[in-house]
């Protein structure tokens, strides 16, 4: 029998650990020695790892083959296989099929011949043939454990059924999935799995979407033969987000593999053996990861479920709406599950280019903030300083009158972190028509240059960052600012052994990175080529630089960006086939705001805020009351009574992302749209409509009155925002075409852009779950 995967939390010698699979990764240089080491590995300690065992087989299988291919497998992740699988399945629909004929093999599944890529497993071959194989432990994005045995199939000339997920498909294999032997084998496995699984489906949150429940309908017996007492397992404390009912665990180890391979935390492990086997953290300890909520999705049973939504809904009562997350600038694809007017939970949606199938904990759990602190009617501050509810007509009239009294040079408008492109477009047009040019989006800084898109986007693309082999991080704590981008970089480190250097605040990235220092001098010395990391970058095949948008808050930002430009030229980061210059944004509104030119126009006042007499805040909360002059008239349009609402003279209630159809652009320049999942609260209105109505009262009527009208206007400003779900690449200008920068670097250290990952915007600040997470996981 194949060795079963057991990952002990006991520390292994540093040189050989890191992650279970990396210790068996092979050098891409020499495939034959790699094969040997794989085989050797599989005879020693490697026996504990299904991956390694598998890699050993792969090693034999691949002997003498092209090293690069081999590398994919050797590096331990099953991802290489996944990619193959996708290529093959794409071939079926005629999409780009790149595998060469010599890289393909033929197998037969239930008498049907299929051509698959070499290196695919029997399970993947079955998938290509359209045969669904039941599985619990196998997950395409995790290493192969092969320990649940649910995926048994029959292979001709093999005496026993084989675990298809862990068995490489060989040329000419005859796979059978419907024979009585297979059925009986799977029934046997199911019976064993159910021995210790509680019969609490009626009170289990996984009910209705549980793999075990579904499979037991097919392979389960109608009566049990087990009359002894079922075992019970003590629940583990994983913090305020993940609820555990460990008695339900079937020891598939998906969560353990997720934690160590994807999240990069080595806290979860398997304890004990046989009937005493348990998943846990060994010592009482929380799993601190921004991606921890994903274990809920990958757990095939109800052992790990969402704590905030425990016992609140059954999956079949929920209405699902496909939407986009706005909690950071990645634009993860999500599914909003709602019941009536309430958002019940948020789950990831598959998008290989953006979030794969993961989302961050903030995206997943901040939704309870949508139900608290909401603004639901227009308010005006009366003479005695109290906010009073008024009609829309009166509120808008008050704002229009106040705006017309002020000299346009003394007006300003700020768009908040969650603003959609439509609202920003309308607000920009309105303010421009009133003569005001002083506009900015939170996070972009007050006088950012938005000329060239390639200067403020992730040009390598989010998925493309996986290919980098040397990366310089400048002024960013990537794990906190963009957890999913950090995960891509982590993949590059794991799969390609990318070297990562950090200039900026010292931070834990959950992968190996060299901290080069936190000051501009280091940056300057890399730019001059004196620092050893400059060589690392120049030697790399796909060098990349990731600059955090916290840099925009520095007074010497031009000099910093110029230094980064120099580094990128010296290391050839931007070339025709690869652009590794990446600027990572923090908030959902930033990219679209820059594209629309939501920046100060020429001749606008910048800097000194004391002259502002009329301030329009579109959900912007970053200004402290001290920044806003006392005599300024402040309009707050937004969905939450957050910080700045307390300073407002007029409050106009807008809608949250879960209630509107809004366009957002993510940090790589991909245009995506949210869709309304639930009705809005009270008297709130779509943001662009509020601005459109206001424009009429202010005598500068905007020339559109439908959503499509606003979008047509966006087409005239930034046409790429009209291309939903598409990524319009930005072409960088050659160095000779860029103006010279005279600014000097300052020696001040780079600051953290985000102090608390869990609370960054009005929604997450209103969320109780995020407050609990802050308490449980905040930086020590």
């Amino acid at each position: 029998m194949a060795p079963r995967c057991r990952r002990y939390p006991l520390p292994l010698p540093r040189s050989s650990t890191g992650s279970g699979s990396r210790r068996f990764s092979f050098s891409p240089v020499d495939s034959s020695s790699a094969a040997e080491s794989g085989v050797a590995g599989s005879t020693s300690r490697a026996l504990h790892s299904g991956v390694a065992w598998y890699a050993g087989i792969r090693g034999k299988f691949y002997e003498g083959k092209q090293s690069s291919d081999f590398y994919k497998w050797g590096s331990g992740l099953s991802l290489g296989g996944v990619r193959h699988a996708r290529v093959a399945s794409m071939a079926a629909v005629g999409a780009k099929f790149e595998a060469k004929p010599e890289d393909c093999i033929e197998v037969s599944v239930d008498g049907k011949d299929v051509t698959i890529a070499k290196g695919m497993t029997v399970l993947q071959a079955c998938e290509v043939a359209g045969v669904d194989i039941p599985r619990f432990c196998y997950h395409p994005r995790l290493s192969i454990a092969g320990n649940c045995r649910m995926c048994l199939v029959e292979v001709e000339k093999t005496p026993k059924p084989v675990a298809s997920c862990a068995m490489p498909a060989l040329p000419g294999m005859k796979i059978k999935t419907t024979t009585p032997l297979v059925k009986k084998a799977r029934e046997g496995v199911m019976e064993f799995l159910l021995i210790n699984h509680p019969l609490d489906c009626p009170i289990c949150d996984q009910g209705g979407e549980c793999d075990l429940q579904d499979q037991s309908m097919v392979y389960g017996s109608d009566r049990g033969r087990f009359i002894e007492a079922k075992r019970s397992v003590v629940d583990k404390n994983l913090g305020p987000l993940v609820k555990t009912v460990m008695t339900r665990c079937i020891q598939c180890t998906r969560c353990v593999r997720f934690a160590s391979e994807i999240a990069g935390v080595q806290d979860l492990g398997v304890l004990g053996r046989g009937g005493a086997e348990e998943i846990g953290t060994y010592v009482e300890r929380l799993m601190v990861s921004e991606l921890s909520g994903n274990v809920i999705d990958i757990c095939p049973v109800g052992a790990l479920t969402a704590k905030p939504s425990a016992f609140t809904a059954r999956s079949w009562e929920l209405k699902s709406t496909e939407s986009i997350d706005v909690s950071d600038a990645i634009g993860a694809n999500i599914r909003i599950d709602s019941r009536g007017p309430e958002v019940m939970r948020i789950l990831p949606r598959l998008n290989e280019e953006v979030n794969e199938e993961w989302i961050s904990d903030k995206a997943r759990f901040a939704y309870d903030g949508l139900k608290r602190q909401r603004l639901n009617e227009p308010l005006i501050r009366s003479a005695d300083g109290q906010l009073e509810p008024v009609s829309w007509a009166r509120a808008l009239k008050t704002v229009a009158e106040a705006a017309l009294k002020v000299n346009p040079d003394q007006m300003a408008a700020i768009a908040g972190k969650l603003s959609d492109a439509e609202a920003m477009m309308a607000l920009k047009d309105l303010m421009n028509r009133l003569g005001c040019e002083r506009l900015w989006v939170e996070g972009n800084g007050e006088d950012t240059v938005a000329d060239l898109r390639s200067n403020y986007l992730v040009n390598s693309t989010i998925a493309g960052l996986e290919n980098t082999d040397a990366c310089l991080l400048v002024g960013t704590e990537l794990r906190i600012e963009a957890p999913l981008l950090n995960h891509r970089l982590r993949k590059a480190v794991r799969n390609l052994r990318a070297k990562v250097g950090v200039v900026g605040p010292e931070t834990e990235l959950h992968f190996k990175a060299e901290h080069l220092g936190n000051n501009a001098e280091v940056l300057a010395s890399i730019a001059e080529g004196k620092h050893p990391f400059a060589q690392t970058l120049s030697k790399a095949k796909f060098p990349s630089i990731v600059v955090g948008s916290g840099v925009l808050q520095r007074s010497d930002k031009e000099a910093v960006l110029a230094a980064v430009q120099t580094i990128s030229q010296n290391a050839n980061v931007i070339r025709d086939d690869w652009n590794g210059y990446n600027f990572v944004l923090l908030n959902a509104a930033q990219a679209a705001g820059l594209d629309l030119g939501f920046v100060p126009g020429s001749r606008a006042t910048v800097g000194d805020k004391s002259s502002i007499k009329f301030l329009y805040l579109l959900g912007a909360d970053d200004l402290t009351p001290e920044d806003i002059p006392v005599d300024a008239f402040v309009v707050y349009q937004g969905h939450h009574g957050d910080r700045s609402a307390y300073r407002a003279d007029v409050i106009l209630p807008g809608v949250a992302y879960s209630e509107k159809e809004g366009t957002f652009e993510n940090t790589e320049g991909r245009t995506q749209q949210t869709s309304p999942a639930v009705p809005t609260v009270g008297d709130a209105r779509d943001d662009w409509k509020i601005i459109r109505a206001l424009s009429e009262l202010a005598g500068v009527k905007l020339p559109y009155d439908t959503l499509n009208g606003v979008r047509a206007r966006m087409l005239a400003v930034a046409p790429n925002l009209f291309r939903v779900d598409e990524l319009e690449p930005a072409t960088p200008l050659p160095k000779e075409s860029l103006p010279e920068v005279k600014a000097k670097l300052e020696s001040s250290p780079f600051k953290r852009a985000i102090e608390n990952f869990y609370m960054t915007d009005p929604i997450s600040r209103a969320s109780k779950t995020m407050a609990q997470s802050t308490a449980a996981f905040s930086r020590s």
Partner: protein
Amino acid sequence: MAWRSKLSQSLRELRIHMCQTSVASKATREFVVKNYKDLKTLNPRLPILIRECSGIQPRLWARYDYGVERSIPLDGLSEPEINAKLEELVETAPQSKTPMHA
């Protein structure tokens, strides 16, 4: 080309639309590569938004005071002609200095 330094006097924002690859946008791309530095150096505070989108018609957009906009399609024009069009946009800036609402 003295008019170039007047850009930020008469314009509030300049937008240049073009496709990343199309033949129709080729001259516009060349114009940007050759002139961006000069224009930006002379008018550091003027947003010159280069917006690329596949398959769109190359176009110059000028935004003047109080949100007045004008645009000129650029397909078929050579690089010096584009330059002339830009000059035209600058020289013929609407003179209305009164706020629309006053």
